[in-house]
């Protein structure tokens, strides 16, 4: 299923990279409107802005990357978005905290910073002024650390609040009706917890699985909930959290750290000097094994990122088709919209499966890595030597 999703969605992944820089910004609102049946409303807006070409690549990239505000609808300076806090630390200027609405959609600078193509950059001119009149301070930008609550961070925090609410209330339900059959949310979550425990942790890790259960459960539900939130097109969903390389990198890194920290002698021995392998082969094998240690978390990171991002891209691509055809003729756009919406519904159903599957795969592979790290030495070699 994983490889299928990857190969199926790869062409769109490539298509997305061919984005050209066009001033025209077609918004999420149009996507939404199309998705929510208001096709006529869209067709009138398309004819109004027919002078500006629709750029599918740019639109898609904007929706799958991070942003300093949560875009709701509209285009350019008339767009409506939820402003989010900008937090910038600069080694010389210190900490700056302000709302992203100060930037007025990339049109103004504030406190020595301005927004350039979605990124906060430092400028020479302090105070508020027209962004176009400022000049970028490359040196200060290099020393600035952007810790803003971006769209992804906000979505991340929302998902964490959601996870806390779900599982703390489930935990209290367990305390309330101790020893009884689960009820409500509890009975929805329980099979999944048991699934992670019995199908992932126990067979992959072995008898010491209990130590790794909290991480495996957290990572499973974190990825799954965020994948699902990503499929919801309106706030607070729609952000591409698990399709962001920073998020998947952090998760893969934590798996890597846990694996490395809990690794026993047997694990390292298998990497640096595989038992029962001649020295000549070891010269070849050991570098591969060492590379493998780092390759595993890297693959974890890429797999989740690519799968979820590809899912977002494919849905956005189908919607883009409507606007591309709509620019040729309104009727054609309306005609294509029927197929696009049908395909998006189909893909969304597939993505529901992928959302669960990717959470499962990430958790399963993490568990397998933990299992290989704490696996005890098999005495096969000794036994065979005794028998002779």
């Amino acid at each position, binding site marked *: 299923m994983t490889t299928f999703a990857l190969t199926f969605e790869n062409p769109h992944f490539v298509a*997305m*990279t061919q984005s050209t820089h066009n001033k025209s910004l077609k918004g999420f609102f149009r996507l939404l409107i199309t998705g929510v049946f208001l096709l006529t409303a869209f067709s009138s807006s398309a004819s109004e802005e027919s002078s500006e070409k629709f750029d599918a690549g740019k639109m898609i*990239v904007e929706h*799958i*990357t*991070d942003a300093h505000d949560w875009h709701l609808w509209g285009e350019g300076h008339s767009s409506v978005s939820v402003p989010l806090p900008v*937090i910038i630390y600069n080694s010389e200027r210190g900490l700056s905290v302000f709302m992203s609405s100060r930037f007025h959609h990339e049109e103004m600078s504030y406190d020595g910073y301005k927004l350039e193509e*979605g*990124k906060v950059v430092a400028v020479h001119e302090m105070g508020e002024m027209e962004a176009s009149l400022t000049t970028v301070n490359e040196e200060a930008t290099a020393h600035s*650390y*952007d*810790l*803003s*609550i*971006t769209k*992804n*961070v906000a979505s*991340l*925090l929302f998902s*964490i609040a959601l*996870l*806390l609410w779900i*599982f*703390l209330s*489930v*935990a209290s339900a*367990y*305390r309330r009706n*101790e*020893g009884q059959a689960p009820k409500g949310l509890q009975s929805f979550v*329980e099979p999944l*917890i*048991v699934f992670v*425990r019995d199908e992932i942790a126990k067979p992959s890790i072995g008898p010491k699985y*209990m130590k790794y*259960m*909290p*991480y495996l*459960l*957290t990572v499973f539900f*974190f990825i799954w909930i965020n994948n699902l939130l990503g499929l919801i097109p309106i706030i607070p969903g729609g952000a591409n959290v698990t399709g*962001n*390389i*920073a*998020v998947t*990198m*952090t*998760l893969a890194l*934590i798996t890597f750290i846990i694996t490395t920290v809990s690794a026993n002698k047997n694990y390292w021995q298998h990497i640096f000097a595989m038992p029962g392998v001649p020295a000549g082969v070891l010269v070849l094998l050991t570098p591969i094994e060492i590379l493998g240690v780092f390759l595993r978390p890297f693959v974890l990171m890429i797999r989740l*990122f690519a799968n979820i*991002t590809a899912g977002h891209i494919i849905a956005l691509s189908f919607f883009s088709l409507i606007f591309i055809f709509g620019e040729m003729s309104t009727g054609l756009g309306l005609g294509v919209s029927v197929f696009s919406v049908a395909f998006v519904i189909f893909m969304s159903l597939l993505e529901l499966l992928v959302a669960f599957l990717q959470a499962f795969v990430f958790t399963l592979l993490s568990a397998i890595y933990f299992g290989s790290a704490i696996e005890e030495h098999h005495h096969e070699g000794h036994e065979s030597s005794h028998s002779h």
Partner: protein
Amino acid sequence: MELIQPSIGLVFWMTVSFLILLFILKKFAWKPILQMLSDREHSIAEALNTAKKAREEMASLKADNERLLQEARLERDRMLKEARDTKDAIIAEAKEKAQAEGNKIMAQTREAIQTEKNAAVTELKNLVATMSVQIAEKILRAELSNDQKQKDLVQSMLKDIKMN
């Protein structure tokens, strides 16, 4: 490009918030939930085991009962048979005894009757003799009530004696 460049801010927030989430869930959710789950699984397994044991016990009890019942039934039949035999024996014996007793009584009775009869016959003979004597006496008295008659008698008797 931006898509595959992890931004420091997101890595920072992700690390911080994920670790906090992990910590809180570990302490307040996973630990109690997993504990309760395994507790409940144990209690269910135990309950099932107990039920199984109880069922087995019931089955063995039932078999025992069946066996006891069977034994009791056999015992009853045996006792009934014995009682019937005893009864028959008693009745036969009683019959025999009664027969013997009856015979004995009959014999005695017959004997008694015989004795009584003999006695009666003897008495009757005596009585008849006495009465005959008395009658004879009375007749004699009546015959010999006057002197003429006495003379006649003596005459007649004398006649008889003469003949001899």
